[in-house]
């Protein structure tokens, strides 16, 4: 591991100008994420979690502060971090294979090579046999797996996941969570995962970052030292319940704050 962290966020603030005036989404956020970490960001809705990811991906420009990836500042949209969107964002006119190949095609990788790479990742997410299907014939869970394969095929150092499993049913979510853990262990990617589910955070993370209500600030940064694999017995352990209480208390306080703000605003 070399000296500079995978992601370094310094004094980051973001204010949006809307029709109803200015909205301060993030205020003075400092965060360093190291290689191989699985960081889950939790917080009440509207706390700026998604904004944080969009800033890291370069979709938005910060109002103040800077973001560095391995010491290099983010100056615009870049392919260094693979983004997984809540609404999958698959290209409906491309087959599963063509979707997964997309990043490689952009790198002008020869057709044969990218097809082989894509097949490997399609197999990794368990979609062998669906290579030539169009996304609209797939279920939500399958779509999100295509999306993950697409990001992985591009081989980014970091994966940014914006509530990727929020729209899925409980069973599918569990399967995908386990698959994601396996992938992370095997590929050693740095993960930044956003959710509002505390259980999901405890299950996946190596570290949990809790954000305050708007304007988003970091309120807690907790090391998740639960043993892996985080099976049913871990989920019933004392440490799990302690951590859950700790996270829950912080999040609840922020939720109440944001509700109060909503009532007055």
């Amino acid at each position, binding site marked *: 591991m070399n000296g500079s962290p995978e992601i370094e966020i310094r004094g980051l603030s973001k204010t949006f100008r809307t029709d109803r005036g200015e909205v301060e989404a993030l205020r003075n956020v400092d965060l360093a994420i190291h290689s191989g970490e699985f960081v889950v960001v939790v917080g009440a809705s509207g706390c700026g979690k998604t904004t944080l990811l969009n800033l890291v*991906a370069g*979709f938005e420009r910060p109002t103040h502060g800077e973001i560095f990836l391995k010491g290099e500042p983010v100056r615009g*949209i870049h*392919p260094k*971090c*693979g*983004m997984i*969107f809540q*609404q999958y*964002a*698959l*290209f*409906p*006119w*491309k087959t599963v294979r063509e979707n997964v190949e*997309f*990043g490689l*095609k*952009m*790198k002008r990788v020869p057709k044969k090579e990218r097809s082989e790479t894509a097949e490997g990742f399609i197999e990794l997410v368990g979609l062998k046999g669906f290579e030539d299907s*169009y*996304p*609209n014939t797939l279920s939500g869970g399958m779509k999100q797996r295509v999306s993950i394969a*697409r*990001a992985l095929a*591009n081989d980014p150092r970091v994966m940014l996941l914006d509530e990727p499993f929020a729209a899925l049913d409980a069973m599918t979510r569990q399967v995908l969570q386990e698959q994601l853990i396996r992938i992370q262990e095997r590929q050693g990617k740095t993960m930044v995962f956003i959710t509002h589910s505390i259980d999901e955070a405890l299950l996946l993370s190596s570290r949990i970052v809790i954000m305050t209500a708007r304007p988003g600030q970091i309120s807690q940064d907790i090391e998740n030292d639960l043993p892996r694999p985080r099976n049913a017995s871990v989920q019933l352990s004392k440490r799990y319940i302690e951590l859950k209480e700790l996270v829950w208390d912080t999040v609840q306080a922020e939720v109440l704050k944001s509700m109060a703000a909503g009532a007055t605003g």
Partner: protein
Amino acid sequence: MITPMHKSPRYLLISAVSFVCMVLLWEAICRLGLIEPVFLPSPSRVLLRAIALQERGELLIHILASCRRVMVGFLAAALAAVPFGIFLGTSRLFLSIFDPVISLLRPLPSMSWIPLSLLWLGISETQKYSIVFMGSFAPSLLYVIEATKSVDPVLVRAAQNLGAGRADVMREVILPGALPQIIAGLKVMLGIAWTCVISAELVAASNGLGFMIMNGKEYFQTDTVMLGMVLISLTVMIIDAVFKRIERKVLPWMS
């Protein structure tokens, strides 16, 4: 044809029976002398006119002349409108520059271009093409701009996140993303192109279905007029069916 759903054999059967009944009823009304032929010629009379014109070798000339004008004018309009529309749909600056011109051109009926086009292009086929072009370009352009704007911005972000440059986004995301709406718009425009060609053929034309209708009117040959109308309907239906084929080929993910 109307496409509300997949047409079951039952649906088609009822449609066929209704069509036959309609024609028979029409024929009966004319045969009974309820309406003078100059006001409404019978279907058989229209058919006889078709045969007579075919024998004189004129029928195909009229059909092909109009089809060629529609195709040339419409294709030129579409070929110009699609890239330009995508460009404007993705550039607020250029959209704001061209907005006034497009807004002014759009409401103009193709008929209104006839005098100027005659001055600029003379009595020529190019002048006919230009009428179809002017009648269909501005509306097509608006369809394309709207289609382009309707592409989900998340898809653009996703593509850029995977390393797509500006040209890649255009080719890989905006164009295919807007294509279903562009094709839907062009289908509407093709119908409008047919109304344009009829107006183009009102002046200084010596062939075409529009000319056939107008000349039929001059000679009070209502059957010729009717025949021209029927032929326009049939031609547009055939072209529509071809269009649907193409659509299925170009948009395989839509089915």
